[in-house]
């Protein structure tokens, strides 16, 4: 369904200039700054998969999504989505995909939601019957009934994302790109969005590629994750594979009778907690719990309380970042 080969995107930004005639100067003799946003990534996504595309802000997630959806032209490498090259076969390709940006709407701000859906129907040349069927289904599943006749600017964020999802699916795309669909949405609304995405995936076989910072999104929605850092792919595999690989990570939260010690051990991260305690993150392949405790005791501090946890997904992802990634 999606094949990405050695894909790169380098932004050439004109260095802004100061002073008089600065615009004229930068037109006649531009100075460029180059920034490599996506750097030689490979992956492929099969029919009906739900894949989480994760990474820190600025890691290159949105740039990838924009290349996959045909907004941006890659600097080098190949993208095929359902046999088409997105930026070259733009119009045909757009009928195959639906895109939702959690942070901005693709609906008309000042008119009722239903009007936006109608004009999109015309743009995508969706037949009446199919449109009515989809509208009824999405209205039910996403509970749009209450606000179909309200202008988008009056909607809550959760409502707006639901409306955007419905809009992105009206033309029955095969693939859905979701860029942070749950960001800023409250817990109940998030749950509804997830159920809907799963349902659409199951019932219609729609493949989904979504970016998210939300650990729960990953655990509930996604069976495979692709992790990108600094524009490079650093992990691609099952989500439980991540846990296996990093499952021996431990987070030890300690309270002390006296001042917490300064602990500097190779491969160990420490963090002062808000309650005055110290969190120590380490890998059991490097230190056993017993070794770690004796290291701490050697500093002369007296431990009052201790909690030891397995690392959660968020912690694991952070660890991958900190390592700068292992090549996959």
């Amino acid at each position, binding site marked *: 369904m999606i094949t990405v080969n050695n894909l790169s995107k380098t932004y050439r930004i004109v260095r*802004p200039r100061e002073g008089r005639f600065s615009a*004229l100067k930068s037109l006649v003799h531009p100075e460029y700054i180059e920034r490599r946003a996506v750097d030689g990534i490979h992956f492929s996504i099969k029919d009906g998969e739900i894949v989480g595309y994760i990474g820190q802000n600025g890691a290159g997630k949105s740039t990838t999504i924009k290349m996959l*959806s045909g907004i941006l032209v890659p600097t080098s490498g190949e993208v095929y989505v359902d046999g088409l090259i997105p930026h070259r076969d733009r119009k045909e390709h757009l009928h195959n995909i639906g895109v939702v*940006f959690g942070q*901005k709407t*693709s609906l008309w701000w000042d008119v009722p939601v239903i009007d936006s859906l109608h*004009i999109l129907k015309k743009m995508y040349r969706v037949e009446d019957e199919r449109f009515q069927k989809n509208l009824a289904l999405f209205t039910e599943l996403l509970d749009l009934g209450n606000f179909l006749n309200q202008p988008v600017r009056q909607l809550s964020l959760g409502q707006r994302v639901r409306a955007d999802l419905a809009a992105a699916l009206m033309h029955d795309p095969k693939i859905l790109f979701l860029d942070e669909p749950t960001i800023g949405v409250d817990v109940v609304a998030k749950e509804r969005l997830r159920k809907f995405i799963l349902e659409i995936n199951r019932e219609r076989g729609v493949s989904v590629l979504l970016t998210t910072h939300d650990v729960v999104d990953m655990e509930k929605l996604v069976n495979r994750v692709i992790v990108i850092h600094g524009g490079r792919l650093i992990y691609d595999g099952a989500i439980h594979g991540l846990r296996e690989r990093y499952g021996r990570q431990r987070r030890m939260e300690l309270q002390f009778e006296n001042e917490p010690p300064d602990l500097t051990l190779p491969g160990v991260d420490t963090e002062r907690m808000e309650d005055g305690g110290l969190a120590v993150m380490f890998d059991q392949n490097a230190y056993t719990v017993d070794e770690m405790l004796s290291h701490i005791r050697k500093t002369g501090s007296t431990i009052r309380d201790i909690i030891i946890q397995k690392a959660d997904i968020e912690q694991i992802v952070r660890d991958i970042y900190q390592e700068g990634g292992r090549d996959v």
Partner: protein
Amino acid sequence: MKEFWFHIKMYGALLKMTMRSMLQYRADFWMSLVSVVLLNGANIIQLSVISWRFHSLGGWSVGELLVLYGMFMVAWSIFSIFFRKLSKIEEEIVNGVFDIYLLRPVSPFLQLVGGDINHIGLCDTFMGLALVAAGLAKTGVRWDMEHILWFVVFILSGGVIVVCIRFLISCLAFWITKAKALSSLFTQLYLLTQKYPVTIFGKVFRVLVTGIVPVAYLNFYPATYLMGKPDAPPWLCMLSPVVAFVMAGISALVWRQGMRRYDSCGG
């Protein structure tokens, strides 16, 4: 052909959405209407004061100057009614709206243009036509059918030219930031050519407004021809549709290049 009708229909649908959005802000509508009338009034008073003090300007009588001014307004209004959004490409890119255009299977150009309609611009059309009529009455020149046809051709060509000029300046946003600073430079040009026959300026200026930024084709050449002035040879005036055609071609090329160069707004 089918594609053509599809796009016409889409343009209509987009304008309908735009108008529906605008109706949400009625107070805005009336305020801007009043300000346009006042602004134009001030301009005309200024012109009549100048004309009254000098009687004629570079061999142009008051009536002829009114025709000059009026034709500029009518051609300009084509831009300001239908194509104003073309001068906002930079904002659309920065706001990320341009990304959204590229996600819909309809020409982004059409979506851009369809995103705005400026009914207030009609004031310019009517006031411009009124000035042309007043100028004709004052000079006693009578236009036959051929003149009227040429008037229409000149206005349409002038409309295309002004749209292209504004559009090309705006397209710079694909290449540089702060394209806006440049556009104010051009505004200075319009301000001069709207009121004064370009023959009163030096040769360099004439070449500039004829061959480089052809704003003289909005009013100077058309009025020269229609009023039978000796300021320019008729063939140069009648080039107007050719100039419009060339400008449109350049615009299409630049747009295509710009789209290829489009880098979204990072992220």
